[in-house]
């Protein structure tokens, strides 16, 4: 007898997960070596793109019974889409996993929804014995699972407004916005913080920690209220006009002599923000302001360094308990030419041994500062 949940799941997979996309997969296995979860689980096919696609098909066809192990296989996927460029058959894996998540979310009993979205891959990965090797990979995933994915997700979702709603429905509850952080001690450096639309919602925790770190380094952090999404998403999807509208709003929002720097902590945004000047240079009203904006703009690693973070980190001696590496955000590295800064911070951070990753710049893992902001996570992986 097919249980009610099973039936619901199957129906939902049939409704939401595109059979044609699934059929594109010829099961050649070329994607396996590209998939971080496959490698970190010591080659568990269940946690590979090919395995997940087979599970999607099996859910549709009723060949597998929905249970925790099936849910896990999908949850563990980081959505990093490293499998896509590796796939010669052009399987649109990103779309498939999105659809799968929607399918699951629809059919899952209420109350479980949030769990589906939030559950991190790491739960399952901890089990691996080969911890040191895994750590390197994990930190790398962590970055991969960050902004870039979400940016793509949103790009994708923009095309399908109903999906967007679905996704938003399961986003973590947003903390009350902290508008202005003032500190009791007089501060020397004043920093205006660019929150970024995604960073502000999905990665609020990251923003909070970024601000905390800035304050710890003695800066005063201001979050201009009127700011908007940087506009990169529009710009990259061929709607530069709309992107420039945001640019103007932001230039206005940050137009103040009050602060010394405008900082952002997402490579993708940073690249577009740094191009405001270029895009607005013909505009008599905004050219000067945009120039000011760009002058003050700085990426988070560089600012941390300017605020003397290296020395502070060095003071905090502790034995190396983990190996960390850094994978460049493509935009940060390729557009803004930030290369040494994040590395130098990681090298000085206590408790880690830094090792350069082969091909660190080849695939764009965004949210490069993430591992720095999440030392507990990096440590937890070791336990």
């Amino acid at each position: 007898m097919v249980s009610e949940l099973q039936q619901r799941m199957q129906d939902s997979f049939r409704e939401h997960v595109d059979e044609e996309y699934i059929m594109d997969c010829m099961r050649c296995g070329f994607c396996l070596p590209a998939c971080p979860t496959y490698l970190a689980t010591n080659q568990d096919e269940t946690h590979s793109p090919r395995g997940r696609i087979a599970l999607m098909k099996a859910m549709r066809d009723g060949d597998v019974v929905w249970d925790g192990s099936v849910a896990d296989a999908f949850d563990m996927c980081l959505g990093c889409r490293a499998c896509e460029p590796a796939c010669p058959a052009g399987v649109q894996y990103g779309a498939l996993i999105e659809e799968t998540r929607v399918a699951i979310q629809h059919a899952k009993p209420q109350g479980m929804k949030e769990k589906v979205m939030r559950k991190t891959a790491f739960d399952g990965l901890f089990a691996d014995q080969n911890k040191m090797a895994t750590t390197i990979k994990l930190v790398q995933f962590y970055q991969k699972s960050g902004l870039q994915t979400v940016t793509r997700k949103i790009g994708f979702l923009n095309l399908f407004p109903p999906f967007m709603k679905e996704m938003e429905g399961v986003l973590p509850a947003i903390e009350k916005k902290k508008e202005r952080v003032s500190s009791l001690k007089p501060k020397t450096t004043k920093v205006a913080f660019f929150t970024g639309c995604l960073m502000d919602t999905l990665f609020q925790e990251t923003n909070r920690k970024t601000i905390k770190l800035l304050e710890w380094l003695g800066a005063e952090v201001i979050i201009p209220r009127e700011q908007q999404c940087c506009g990169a998403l529009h710009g990259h999807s061929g709607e530069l006009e709309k992107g420039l509208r945001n640019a103007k709003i932001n230039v206005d929002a940050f137009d103040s002599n009050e602060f010394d720097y405008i900082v952002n902590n997402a490579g993708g945004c940073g690249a577009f923000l740094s191009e405001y000047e270029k895009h607005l240079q013909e505009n008599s009203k905004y050219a000067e302001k945009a120039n000011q904006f760009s002058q003050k703009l700085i990426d988070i690693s560089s600012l941390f360094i300017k605020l003397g973070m290296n020395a502070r980190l060095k003071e905090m001696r502790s034995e190396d308990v983990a190996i960390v590496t850094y994978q460049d955000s493509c935009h940060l590295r390729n557009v803004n030419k930030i290369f040494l800064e994040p590395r130098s911070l990681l090298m000085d951070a206590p408790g880690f041994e830094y090792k350069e990753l082969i091909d660190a710049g080849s695939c764009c893992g965004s949210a490069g500062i993430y591992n720095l902001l999440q030392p507990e996570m990096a440590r937890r992986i070791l336990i």
Partner: protein
Amino acid sequence: MNDEMIQSFVRIVGKENIKYSKAQLLAYSYDATANFQSKPDLVISPKNTEEIVEIVKLCSKEHIPIISRGSGTNLAAGTVPTQGGVVLLFNRMNEMIELDEENLTITVQPGMITLDLSTYVEANGLFYPPDPSSMKISTIGGNVSENSGGLRGLKYGVTKDYVRALTVVLPNGSVLKTGGKLAKDVAGYDLTSLLVGSEGTLGIITEITLKLIPLPVYKKTGIAYFNSLEDAARTVSSIIANKIIPVTLEFMDRGTIGAVEDFMNIGLPRDAEAMLLMEQDGDVELVQKDIQKMIEIAVAEGATSTSIAASPEEADVLKTGRRVALSALARKRPTTILEDATVPRSEIAKMVRAIQEIAIKHDVQISTFGHAGDGNLHPTCLTDVRNKEEMIRVEHALAEIFEVAIQLGGTITGEHGVGEMKAPYLEWKLGESGINLMKQIKQSIDPLNIMNPGKIFAKETKTRLVIHNG
């Protein structure tokens, strides 16, 4: 499989090395072969030969099928557990054991990825030539068990030409060591050769010693396009007749060229009927001379345009084009069925022509590429398994292709193996006495039929087709 039985396996390898969740059993129910799927009862990752001996003894006692599985990239349903049983993985047996630079051998565990091995030996100035297109993900154990070929087969041969010694756990649990780091060895039957290409049906390979050769210092790649298949085929024959043995002499037909171009956008001419990719390696002088000569021959035989890659990067682009041929074709339709009918080199044009006619006759879409130098073609059928009526036509077309290949003095599979998929056609090639001898061999080594049952030997042979060519 009942809990008690699972516990017995847990006692051998530890519970973290056993998989049997619903998702896991599904994830090991398929390989790269279209239209075959069946779940195992258990998936086990042993650590060494000793653990495998224990596993085999238990399976033999309980009559449980054992399906050895590398990366599951074979194209003959060789790792689909169609009779259930335990899937053995080698993900914990993927180490290099020894590189012996005096004897020019490398000894590895079967789970090592082919590309890792190749990269490793090349870093040491040595060379392991067999390079299946899947080398980035295939395992050495899989390569040995399928006797895989690759793009360099014409000059350097295939996997079997490099296997020097094997450690194998036989179905009765005994450990057999064949061969050695020897260039010569005629002590008894050549058991190494018997095991190479045995597709997991005779035993479990746990250690492999491979022959290496010095890394060629230089290589060069050229390309030629033709307006007719015959011109391309004549070029192949003429190159060999001129006593040039290139490393690579690869062929793509029009359909394949178009698909690759769609995928890679590297400027291949879509209107060409055929393309030949040629590569030579060795000493600088010889390579230059050979590649020049091959291009001259191509032009003389009617090539419409030719070029020589100016840089290794350019050569890589061309070679990648050929490597991705199958996958690029796969984009065209939901299901891809890749065959590897092989004929004597001299019959290539006839074979490709026949394939095209068969495709038209049965109204199916087939593009062909392959290793022209060694007559190993890959007619690739683009179809949709969900369309039952079309699948019947596909089956007829493929059967006809096998038949024509055999009539031309060829075989039903040149490098992919028989597995379960081609088992019903094996007798066409071997004849009754061939099949019977093989059955006797299998019976004496694996009397309980626990080693990858259902593979190579079919319950029933397909009735042979009667084809009148012309």
